[in-house]
């Protein structure tokens, strides 16, 4: 285990400070979007509930499993790299990225189903937020997959630690998005 790579009992943040600045920034952006969603919901709770009925909660739950499992694989990649197992680290990173692609595929199916029903961003304010928040999150998944690919190539502990921290931020945001947009009625 690298002394510089892991946080210690004194309370040092793991990884570079800048990745944490990015994580906090992203949490603030998604937090503002979810806060806005809840605030607008107060103006038409019945309309939001009716619109929410068009969402595929099973797909959302499946994507939660997929993304959290992908997060596990990313964390295992870092642990493998820390003990010098580069091949295993690359395998875990590849598995994490592959599950990221599965997440995007399921999300794509959801969007296609909405499009087939004629549901777009202008259909109802609920869907404006739905597409905005989940689309922005999906863009982060795409970025994360690219980053995981890059650190598979430049595979040192610091790079993998920062990449996996970004990936876990994507996990963290999803576990807040899913209940607020898909489940709260």
């Amino acid at each position, binding site marked *: 285990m690298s002394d510089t790579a*892991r*946080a*210690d*009992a004194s*309370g*040092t*943040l*793991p990884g570079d400070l800048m990745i944490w600045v990015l994580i906090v920034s992203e*949490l603030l952006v998604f*937090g503002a979007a*979810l*806060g806005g969603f*809840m*605030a607008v*919901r*107060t103006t038409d*709770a019945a309309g939001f509930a009716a619109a929410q009925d068009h969402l595929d*909660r099973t797909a959302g*739950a499946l994507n*939660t*499993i997929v993304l*959290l*499992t992908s*997060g*596990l694989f*990313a*964390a*295992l990649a870092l*642990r493998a790299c820390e003990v010098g197992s580069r091949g295993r680290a690359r395998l875990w990173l590849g598995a994490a990225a592959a599950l990221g692609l599965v997440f995007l595929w399921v999300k794509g199916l959801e969007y296609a189903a909405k499009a087939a029903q004629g549901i777009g961003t202008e259909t109802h304010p609920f869907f404006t937020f739905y597409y905005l928040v989940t689309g922005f999150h999906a863009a982060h998944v795409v970025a994360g997959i690219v980053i995981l690919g890059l650190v598979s190539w430049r595979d040192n502990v610091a790079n993998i630690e920062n990449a*996996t*921290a970004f990936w*876990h*931020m994507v*996990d*963290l945001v999803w*576990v*807040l998005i*899913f*209940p*607020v947009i898909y*489940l*709260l*009625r």
Partner: protein
Amino acid sequence: MRVWADNPLWRAWGGLMALGALTTLAAARGGQVAAPVLGAAILALAWAKARLILGRYLDLDRAPAWRRGFSGVIGAFLVLLYGIYLIPAV
């Protein structure tokens, strides 16, 4: 199997799956439980999942002050969302 049980990351993943199952169970009882109770349960489960991700996946268990800070802010944010959620029911 024992290797998985001994690994904190796999245990965290198991915890996340269990919390996900509880969330699904709670959401499925939508018509049987009062909405404010259900909403509180769903957001509390989300907070529990966030804490596991912060502590184990992001390794903040090794930086307890930071873990408490992040968990506290996210918890406060979810309480705020819950407060807004209750407004239509007032």
